[in-house]
């Protein structure tokens, strides 16, 4: 049976998709050395560079956020597969500068292995860099092992905030401190309603019965807390937002950033309706949504579901979040 996808060669997806990406956004980004997405107008050498890595298949993440005020380089792997250490090292060498590099890594086994090896080699070469590991998934509960806390959509606002700090001319230590502060105050929880198809193999990632959904599912179909009957938007919002607010220890008076990230097939309509439910929870607790965005930032092919992201903000973080940026899939002016 043919896959219900518009593709040519299932084994050549990544390079073809990057070609199209360059056709569409050649005014902002360029594909270099096959798998490195870089800015067309590079950042000043005396500012901290922001580099990240990750598999393809989650578009617009990660490379859709390369550009002024966010990422300098995104190292792309194959579909759902981390890029190898050599490419990552190449990116770090390319961005080598006195100001240093902030290296943002999402906690997934392959990414972490590649990042660690590349970082070790880069440090041997005297490249100045600091690594931030995002692992804001709370699906495993408060006692989950570090490895279980996956890096989900939280990397995107982190790129934005770290990128703005770097653009403002802050030092590597300062950029790192800011990014890590944000990193420690953010949490994500995912929910799946329908599976996606792995576009290289044609395999369905998981199965969910017609009347069930699953909270806590990961972005490659990793199981969550087990299937439940489909809840209303308000009840889904309540369950998820309550867990997230607990996880970041949000208190009355806190100012929050809320992102609703569609997984692929779930409509903005639904995400808006769920956000209405989130606001009820937040209002009740005497907190405020200081800023919020709804869209597809990090997808899992045509999966139905979403990732709900909440972060506790302070004035500096809010200002950086609202600072200008110009990338293919996030622009602020």
């Amino acid at each position, binding site marked *: 049976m043919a896959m219900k996808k518009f593709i040519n060669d299932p084994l050549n997806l990544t390079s073809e998709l990057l070609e199209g990406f360059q056709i569409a956004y050649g005014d902002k980004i360029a594909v270099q050395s096959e798998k490195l997405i870089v800015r067309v107008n590079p950042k000043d050498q005396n500012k901290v560079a922001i580099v990240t890595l990750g598999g393809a298949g989650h578009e617009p993440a990660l490379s859709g956020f390369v550009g002024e005020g966010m990422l300098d380089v995104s190292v792309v792997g194959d579909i759902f597969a981390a890029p190898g250490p*050599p490419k990552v090292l190449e990116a770090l060498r390319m961005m080598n500068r006195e100001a240093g590099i902030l290296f943002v890594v999402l906690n997934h086994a*392959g990414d972490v*292995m590649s990042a*660690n090896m590349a970082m070790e080699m880069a440090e041997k070469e005297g490249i100045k860099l600091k690594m931030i590991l995002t692992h804001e998934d709370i699906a495993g509960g408060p006692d989950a092992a570090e490895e279980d806390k996956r890096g989900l959509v939280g990397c995107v606002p982190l790129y934005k905030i770290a990128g703005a700090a770097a653009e403002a001319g802050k030092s590597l230590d300062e950029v790192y401190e800011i990014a890590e502060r944000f990193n420690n105050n953010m949490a994500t929880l995912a929910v799946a309603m329908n599976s996606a198809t*792995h576009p290289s193999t044609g395999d369905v990632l998981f199965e969910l019965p017609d009347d069930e959904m699953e909270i806590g599912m990961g972005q490659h179909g990793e199981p969550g807390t087990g299937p439940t009957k489909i809840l209303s938007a308000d009840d889904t919002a309540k369950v998820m937002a309550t867990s997230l607010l607990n996880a970041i220890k949000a208190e009355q008076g806190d100012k929050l950033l809320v992102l609703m990230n569609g997984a692929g097939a779930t409509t903005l309509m639904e995400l808006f309706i769920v956000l209405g439910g989130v606001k009820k929870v937040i209002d009740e607790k005497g907190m405020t949504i200081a800023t919020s965005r709804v869209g597809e930032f990090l997808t899992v092919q045509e999966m139905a579901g979403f990732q709900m992201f909440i972060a506790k903000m302070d004035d500096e973080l809010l200002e950086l979040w609202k600072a200008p940026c110009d990338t293919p899939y996030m622009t602020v002016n």
Partner: protein
Amino acid sequence: MSNTIGKKEIIAMIVGAVEKINANHQMLSQLDSATGDGDHGTTMLRSMKAVSETIESSTDTAVKDMLYNIGWAIMSADGGSTGPLLGSFFMGMSESVSDTGMDCGAVAEMIAAGINKMHKQSRAQIGDKTMMDAMLPAMETLNNADKTGSISEALASAAKAAADGAEATTEMTAKFGRARNLGDRVLGHRDPGAVSISLIFKGFCEGLDS
């Protein structure tokens, strides 16, 4: 067969491994469909292509550099976790290889150096249902072999140990990789990565003996 080997034999071993994987990649993907995302065969195939290409361009290269380059090439093939793991194996071997005169002890040391380097990335132990379930028994077998004995025989025992180790993963739940998310559902299925490793050792033997 002489009691020591050098670059030529090492190439033969690796070519044997490449052929073994190439002949079995569909089975590897099928295994990965049961416990992971179904792409392990494809990834290994891509990695082996990188290996072959490196060997072809290594006529005038010292074996040490050739192994390092192979590791680098595997890592460059963007194979998710497989790249850094398998790449480290070859890079580790490159640190204790010689162009000539390696006896069974030296071969065992070389392979141990590869496995140790890989193990640092992996952090998995026996029983975790990963490549290490084939790697670590192979290493132990080689370490216990007669340092001046038959390399061919030692590798055959190592391959047997790796195959047994891979077989044993059938009864395990996974602590690493995608399979760990499936909990008990992976019981009854061999781990594709462990099977790959056992095929590589089998290929080493067949390559050396050919």
